[in-house]
């Protein structure tokens, strides 16, 4: 058994190691070392907890069994999961953090003596407040992430589910959570604690159902943030520095990512959270739809254009992930490079279903990360490039965002794809993208539409090169 002071110092060390773990991610070279710091920090925190309780009785064996059980499931998933399923995986993991926060809070509520928080029915006021907040946020994280997971996995429709009175209902529930926490603290009633958990699960569910599929990058980042705040709430209850530091880090990390994603769509955070974006705009634009001529071509034409180019920029999007076309794409690029054609990749911040989604897929296909550029880094290069190859992206290339103030996506930063000498646009049909608006790029003089599955088209182009 080690003293409380010594274990507090070790918890601080593991908190610092977690900071270094995030710091490592500032560049791919240092990132692997950063991950190692994270593992070390976790190892220290767990070991110190065992040593400080000093309880190596029968319970200890069960703890090890459950760690082993959970750990093997986690390791199995980590090795088996395909990279395209990363958004679902992260959403699923968030739900587990949320649920374990809830369980820890329940356990602390039932047996406060084990945590030095007082006795059942007479828990210290401060601890009870922290515990309720931790439990409520954890419950919201859990049910919200489950919905996000179901939507990303395609088990639940990605389209927003809205109903009348949705916002007032949510507001009433949020207010009642605060009221219940207030009464819980004054009465210490366990019934109120269970009610609090149930309605927190409910609000998490209601908050996420109105948000559409393409807004998932914001939702995942937001849930990431919530899981951090839940951990911090529990950290205050347990008076544990490692948990408080980690909770704050994760909470602010998720908040920053949500901000970056919202900026990438030029929408306010509340606009995304209140939901229903895709559904409302569909009807407005369908009525004014007009038939305009488009040029369409086949793999042969595309190969011809690329062969005569000296530089090509590739713009991947969610469609590439769906078609699993990243490996075929890399093979096409290899062939282009053999012909001395300069190739780079342009990634929009909200391409895909989670922050950095495209980068991971390209990395999986062995694309070196120094050929992959962010929007601001590459946007000026489109004017000098010969061919832009848009594969699975749509709204993020729509020039309407710059020209038409009436458009729902006006003001959203877009890739200046239309400035290229020619644009190759791989798409299955002319249907509008997620925002429900026509892409002007389809009808431009220099655009050649390639109507096919992204993977198949890319393979065909490679054959023709």
């Amino acid at each position, binding site marked *: 058994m080690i003293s409380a002071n010594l274990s507090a110092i070790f918890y601080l060390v593991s908190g610092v190691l977690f900071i270094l773990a995030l710091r490592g991610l500032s560049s791919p070279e240092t*990132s692997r070392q950063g991950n190692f710091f994270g593992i070390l920090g976790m190892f220290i925190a767990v070991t110190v907890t065992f040593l400080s309780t000093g309880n190596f009785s029968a319970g200890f064996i069960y703890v090890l069994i459950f760690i082993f059980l959970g*750990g093997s499931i986690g390791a199995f998933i980590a090795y088996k999961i395909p990279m395209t399923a990363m958004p679902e995986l992260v959403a699923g993991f968030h739900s587990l953090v949320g649920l374990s926060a809830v369980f820890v809070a329940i356990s602390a509520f039932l047996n406060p003596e084990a945590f030095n928080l007082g006795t059942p029915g007479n828990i210290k006021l401060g601890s009870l407040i922290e515990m309720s907040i931790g439990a409520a946020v954890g419950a919201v994280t859990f049910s919200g992430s489950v919905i996000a997971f179901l939507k990303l996995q395609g088990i639940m429709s990605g389209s927003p589910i809205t109903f009348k009175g949705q916002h007032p209902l949510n507001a009433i529930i949020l207010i009642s959570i605060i009221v219940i926490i207030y009464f819980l603290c004054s009465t210490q009633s366990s019934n109120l604690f269970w009610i609090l958990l149930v309605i927190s699960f409910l609000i998490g569910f209601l908050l996420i159902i109105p948000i559409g599929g393409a807004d998932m990058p914001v939702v995942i980042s937001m849930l990431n943030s919530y899981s951090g705040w839940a951990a911090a709430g529990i950290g205050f209850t347990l008076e544990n520095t490692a948990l408080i530091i980690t909770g704050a880090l994760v909470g602010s990390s*998720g908040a920053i990512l949500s901000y970056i994603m919202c900026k990438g769509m030029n929408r306010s955070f509340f606009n995304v959270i209140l939901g229903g974006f895709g559904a409302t705009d569909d009807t407005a634009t369908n009525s004014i739809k007009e038939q305009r001529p488009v040029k369409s071509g086949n793999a042969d034409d595309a190969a011809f254009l690329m062969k005569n180019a000296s530089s090509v920029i590739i713009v991947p999007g969610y469609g590439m992930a769906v078609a699993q076309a990243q490996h075929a794409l890399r093979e096409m690029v290899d062939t282009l490079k053999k012909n001395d054609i300069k190739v780079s990749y342009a990634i929009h911040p909200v391409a895909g279903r989670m922050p950095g989604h495209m980068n991971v897929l390209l990395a999986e296909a062995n694309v070196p990360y120094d050929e992959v550029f962010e929007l601001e880094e590459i946007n000026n290069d489109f004017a000098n490039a010969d061919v832009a190859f848009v594969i699975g992206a749509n709204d993020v290339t729509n020039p309407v965002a710059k020209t038409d103030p009436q458009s729902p996506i006006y003001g959203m930063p877009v890739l200046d794809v239309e400035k290229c000498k020619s644009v190759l646009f791989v798409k299955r049909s002319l249907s509008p993208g997620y925002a429900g608006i026509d892409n002007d790029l389809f009808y431009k003089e220099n655009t050649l539409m390639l109507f096919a599955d992204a993977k198949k088209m890319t393979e065909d182009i490679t054959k023709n090169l």
Partner: protein
Amino acid sequence: MEIDPLIFRLSIFILSIFVGYYVVWSVTPSLHTPLMSVTNAISSVIIVGAIIAGLSGNSDSVFNTSNIFGFLAIALAAVNIFGGFLVTQRMLAMYKKKKKDKQ
């Protein structure tokens, strides 16, 4: 007058938010997905609370309600810790620089 220890914890919390803010802004956008999976893994340090809960029983009552919730929380957090760190490692191993001979 003595300062409530809560204030110290609150200070740590607030300062950590600021540390997090600056550290996360320096993360390169191409690593945002690993960032999410690693934050996932480290937020499972909540396992610390779960272990205390799981060990709280005495030898005759290893499985009372409070312990069972502790054990469940341990299993969930362990899924996340192992899954989160390993999947992050798997992703990071894929980020490679351009090979010179390939050009």
